[in-house]
């Protein structure tokens, strides 16, 4: 029985692997189906900045040829994947959503890119993001605003909005993103899919264009938790080229996924259910907690007293790190160089002034301000102290519970343009996701319902460092009891 194209694009990575194993469709057919979906839907969704059609088809054909010769293939053989455009892909333009890197072609692959090739995944193309990963809606991209597949007037979230929308729109079954303050989890929540930010140091950042080096982490988007585990297996692990990447062994995240954790305790922080939380979002999240209770969870009320300070802390730490990381864009070695400059310093200033967008400039200024003489103690160092208190809150909480659960975002997807004129109101949409990066702990967003306007709602689970196995098992326990991970957005 042949599987029709539209059915193929709604499948998960695990299902596509089975389909190939049974001979129901080959890698080339699967890749063609997703390329067709991109052609049909992306003019409306605008997930992709670049589609790698020729190379993707060549990879797929090569996989089919090797399979027919009985060669051993990688664990993601023939599975198409989309990659956020701040992850380096050798020979393939990588813009970071910025004009300053409009023509930048990396001479090397990121560690995770190498792992995808080794796993025989088929890279379909590079996805849209807020410029240099700074934003929560993709409206800061210098190229285009991605649309939410559940309502094209709404944004998909950000900064990994393109990668999230690509999966939600069935233009790719899985994708990679990056998360510095919630940039995977928030778009996953707004797009009704699963998004995981691993523990800091679980996945190598070599080849991830740096925004905030102590907060950035590459992570996964997928329709379900099984695919999350499959993809995490591929990208996690030691890399000598990233000195912040841990040498801790990588367990097989798929091995015990179906084994429920018994017993387990879920911490519910009172601070995550306070003002600003949309009533429909709260209702869905509380219903999700009831489902978990019915599967054996004990719910325990906890407090994360410093969480109210998380956004203020983040916008000092992240912007300080960003002001250093983005100093390299000076027009000397790569990227945009201004045409009319009178001397070297002028060349730097004009190239950066011309090449960077407004939000990026804002964050560089804020970062340098908080690091400058006379202000560094009151701002940057103060923030680092509060950061330790935030981390201590989590250490205390995880002594008493296995995971912390709450909403991923305070609202569902908002309309394009609604928050773009007020930077601070945009920053506040990261209120539940941001502490996780400051503390370095892993977090996952899983779909837990829809609001009355058919916009997705996400449940966030946070775990202790390197507890992804437990986190995924609990997420899977919830997913098995509910229909949300089976829903697919239909785009006319």
């Amino acid at each position: 029985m042949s599987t029709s194209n539209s059915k193929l694009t709604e499948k998960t990575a695990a299902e596509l692997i089975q389909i190939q194993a049974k001979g129901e469709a080959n890698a080339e057919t699967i890749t063609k189906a997703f390329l067709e979906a991109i052609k049909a839907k992306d003019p409306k969704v605008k997930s992709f900045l670049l589609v790698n059609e020729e190379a993707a088809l060549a990879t797929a054909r090569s996989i089919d040829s090797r399979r027919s010769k009985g060669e051993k293939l990688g664990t993601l053989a023939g599975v198409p994947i989309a990659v956020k455009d701040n992850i380096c892909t050798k020979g393939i333009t990588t813009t970071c959503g910025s004009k300053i890197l409009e023509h930048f072609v990396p001479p090397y692959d990121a560690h995770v890119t190498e792992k995808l090739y080794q796993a025989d995944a088929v890279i379909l193309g590079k996805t849209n993001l807020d410029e240099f990963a700074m934003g929560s809606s993709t409206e800061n991209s210098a190229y285009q605003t991605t649309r939410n597949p559940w309502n094209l007037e709404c944004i998909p979230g950000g900064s990994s909005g393109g990668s999230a929308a690509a999966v939600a729109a069935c233009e790719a079954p899985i994708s990679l993103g990056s998360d510095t303050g919630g940039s995977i989890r928030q778009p996953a929540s707004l797009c009704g899919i699963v998004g995981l930010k691993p523990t800091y140091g679980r996945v190598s950042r070599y080849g991830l264009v740096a925004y905030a080096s102590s907060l950035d982490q590459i992570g996964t988007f997928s329709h379900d938790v099984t695919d999350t585990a499959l993809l995490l297996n591929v990208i996690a692990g030691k890399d000598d080229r990233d000195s912040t990447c841990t040498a801790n062994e990588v367990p097989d995240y798929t091995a015990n996924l179906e084994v429920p954790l018994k017993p387990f305790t879920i911490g519910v922080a009172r601070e995550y259910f306070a003002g600003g939380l949309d009533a429909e979002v709260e209702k869905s999240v509380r219903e999700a907690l009831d489902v978990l209770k019915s599967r054996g969870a004990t719910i325990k009320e906890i407090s994360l007293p410093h969480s109210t300070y998380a956004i203020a802390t983040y916008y000092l730490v992240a912007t300080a790190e960003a002001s250093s990381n983005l100093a390299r864009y000076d027009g000397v070695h790569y990227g945009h160089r201004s045409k009319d400059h009178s001397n070297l310093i002028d060349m730097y200033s004009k190239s950066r002034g011309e090449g960077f967008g407004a939000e990026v400039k804002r964050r560089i200024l804020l970062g340098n301000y908080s690091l400058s003489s006379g202000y560094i103690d009151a701002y940057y160092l103060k923030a680092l102290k509060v950061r330790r208190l935030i981390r201590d809150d989590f250490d205390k909480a995880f002594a008493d519970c296995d995971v912390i659960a709450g909403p991923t975002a305070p609202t569902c997807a908002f309309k394009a343009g609604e928050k773009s004129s007020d930077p601070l109101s945009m920053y506040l949409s990261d209120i539940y996701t941001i502490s996780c990066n400051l503390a370095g702990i892993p977090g996952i967003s899983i779909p837990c319902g829809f609001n009355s306007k058919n916009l997705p709602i996400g449940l966030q689970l946070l775990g202790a460092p390197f507890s992804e196995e437990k986190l995924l098992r609990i997420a899977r326990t919830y997913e098995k009891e509910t229909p949300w991970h089976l829903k697919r957005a239909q785009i006319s």
Partner: protein
Amino acid sequence: MAITLDEIKWIAHLSRLELKPEELIAASTQLSSILNYINQLQEVNTDNVEPLAHALDVSNVFREDVLKESINVNEALSNAPDRQGNFYGVPAILE
């Protein structure tokens, strides 16, 4: 907590960012409002709290001092805005 236009100009200079006059004014307003929000951190008692710059408990990650192949010259220069031989051309630094 207001940032003055002069302060913004100084920070923009340190940041090597040339901003248009309207960008400078907008930056000063927006950053003042953001800093106003950030000032709530002053309420937190951080006496005897060590700064946490890095979430992972690692230090001194070294490798063996062994010569390895590096990126080749053509790849390194492949995105050069102004390649001159095996160099990046830039405006004169010294008078």
